[in-house]
């Protein structure tokens, strides 16, 4: 599979090291995606990495938020408006919102984990009436590291939104500490709640365990996993987690399917 050329239509720095790009296909339409799916983004000559889709741009195309942590993500973050990048995908499983219909929804995001959850939240907002109570809990290392701050404020007017940071600055007035601390504050009704969780693996496991403890069944706690991926299509073998190919069987998976796997060290 070779990447399709996409043009960077806009480039908006979110945070010091995080940029949101709008990518438009150079020719043809851009294939539809479901919340939680990802693309393989190619910085020409530099490399290719998996990046979640954070939204559909109004004029078509993908909205993707990238944090510069290494060579490829840095190159993508620095791609100027108008330049070409390569896109393959979308790939992988998605957050199944149909299953959430009629239920209370907890959306839990750690750090950049908010990026793949953004389409989930927008969907919830667009069809607010289909769901019960909606709570959004977000954790970030520092207030500075929070992405989508303006949207968070907007969502806060419609849902129960709570944000915690590990290391507050002087201006911070909200809660501090781990995101698991927020789970107790949102008041969960186990029989009618489902959860969508994305963030660093330890954060996801701690959150899922906390939700489990509160009685939410494991199959209604859905995570999005991260593994090394070179192909995105189950060919390179890198992303295996026990029997799963994270790129094909995941990245979005029920906690019932992965809890046992994540428990085993270095699986």
């Amino acid at each position, binding site marked *: *599979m*070779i*990447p399709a*050329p996409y043009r960077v239509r806009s480039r908006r720095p979110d945070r010091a090291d995080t940029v949101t790009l709008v990518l438009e296909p150079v020719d043809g339409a851009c294939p539809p995606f479901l919340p939680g799916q990802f693309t393989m983004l*190619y910085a*020409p*000559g*530099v*490399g*290719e990495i998996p990046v979640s889709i954070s939204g559909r741009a109004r004029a078509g195309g993908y909205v993707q938020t990238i944090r510069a*942590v*290494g060579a490829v993500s840095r190159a993508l973050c620095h791609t100027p408006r108008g*330049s*070409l990048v*390569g896109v393959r995908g979308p790939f992988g499983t998605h957050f199944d919102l149909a299953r959430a219909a009629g239920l209370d929804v907890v959306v839990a995001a750690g750090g950049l984990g908010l990026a793949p959850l953004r389409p989930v939240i927008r969907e919830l907002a667009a069809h607010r009436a289909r769901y019960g109570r909606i709570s959004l809990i977000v954790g970030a290392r520092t207030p500075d590291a929070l992405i989508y701050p303006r949207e968070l404020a907007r969502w806060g007017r419609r849902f129960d939104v709570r944000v915690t940071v590990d290391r507050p600055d002087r201006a911070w007035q909200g809660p501090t500490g781990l995101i698991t601390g927020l789970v107790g504050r949102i008041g969960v009704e186990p029989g009618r709640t489902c959860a969508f969780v994305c963030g660093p693996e330890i954060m996801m496991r701690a959150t899922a365990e906390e939700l489990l403890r509160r009685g939410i069944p494991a199959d209604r706690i859905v995570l999005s996993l*991260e*593994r*090394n991926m*070179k*192909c995105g*299509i*189950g*060919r*390179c*073998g*890198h992303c*295996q987690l*026990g*029997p799963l*190919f994270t790129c*094909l069987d995941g990245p979005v998976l029920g906690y019932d399917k992965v809890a046992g796997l994540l428990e*085993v*060290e*270095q*699986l």
Partner: protein
Amino acid sequence: MEPIVLDTLDPLIEALRERGYAVVGPVVRDGVIRFAELGSAADLPTGWGDEQAPGAYRLRARGELVFGFAASPDAVKRFTHPPRTSLFRMRDGVPERAPVEAPKVAILGVRACDLAALAVQDRVLLGGRYPDEAYRKRRAALFLIAVTCAVPGGTCFCASMGAGPRAVSGFEVALTELSGPHRFLAESGGERGAALLAALPSQPAAAADLEAARAVAEAAAGRMGRRVDLDGVRERLVQQRESPIWNDIATRCLTCANCTMVCPTCFCVTVEDGTDLADGTAERTERWDSCFTLDFTELGGAPVRASGAARYRQWLSHKFSTWVDQFGAYGCVGCGRCITWCPAGIDITEELERLR
């Protein structure tokens, strides 16, 4: 088409060449028997055999057989899923697919385990949602001539994997080497094979020839150097994820990846992106990778499978357990290559037994 008997292989080689195939077969080279292009049947390793044991391989003079040896260090994988291929080149932001090189190659002397391994790779590379078209092309360009194993190696266990020693499908022509007098029973496995055989000077096979061929395979099956007890192996490996045996193996395992390189079913790859300093074009190549390398699972600057134990566990569990979950078959065909070509002499059949 009915089985026939061939006295020599030269007409077969010639006929393949006339059909535009480069004919590849086993030859003695640099102290091993391995695939190389054949000039004529005289290049075949007549009289040579091999002795294989964990971490050991030696050439040995052996009777008059042409195919009196076991699996060679290279598998058909080298032709269907080459060690390195170019995927695309990109000039001014527009990627151009690299042309797929799929030369017409006839491989003479393919073993049952190799055919079984091809079937496994077919499932992996063609059976899913994203079939690999380059693999399909290279695969289609092959003309496979199987040979029944008469002398299995000391590390072979294809019989217990249900993959040999006699090839039952996946070939165009299958040969069984018979002695007294020396001749080959040839059976076709497809139309191309039948057409080829029809064009060769031959006699029809007698009932005794068929019986002799069966006896060759049976004797070989009885002489397998090793076996694996598949009963419950898949579940067992799941239960044994935290076994201390993995750490014990890790003290011996070099994490050198030889086992995965020689394995005919291992398919893992990585990609390398680069730019040409001179003309600025970008290129992506794909090359064999292995679950034994650290970069394989690198995430956020650190590998998921940092320990040798975790990497060995991935390899063995994949072959005999999770492969079944993923592809509905084992990832091992019992060729024994990973045992012979492991510098540390680690024997998967023995380790599986210990993990009981």
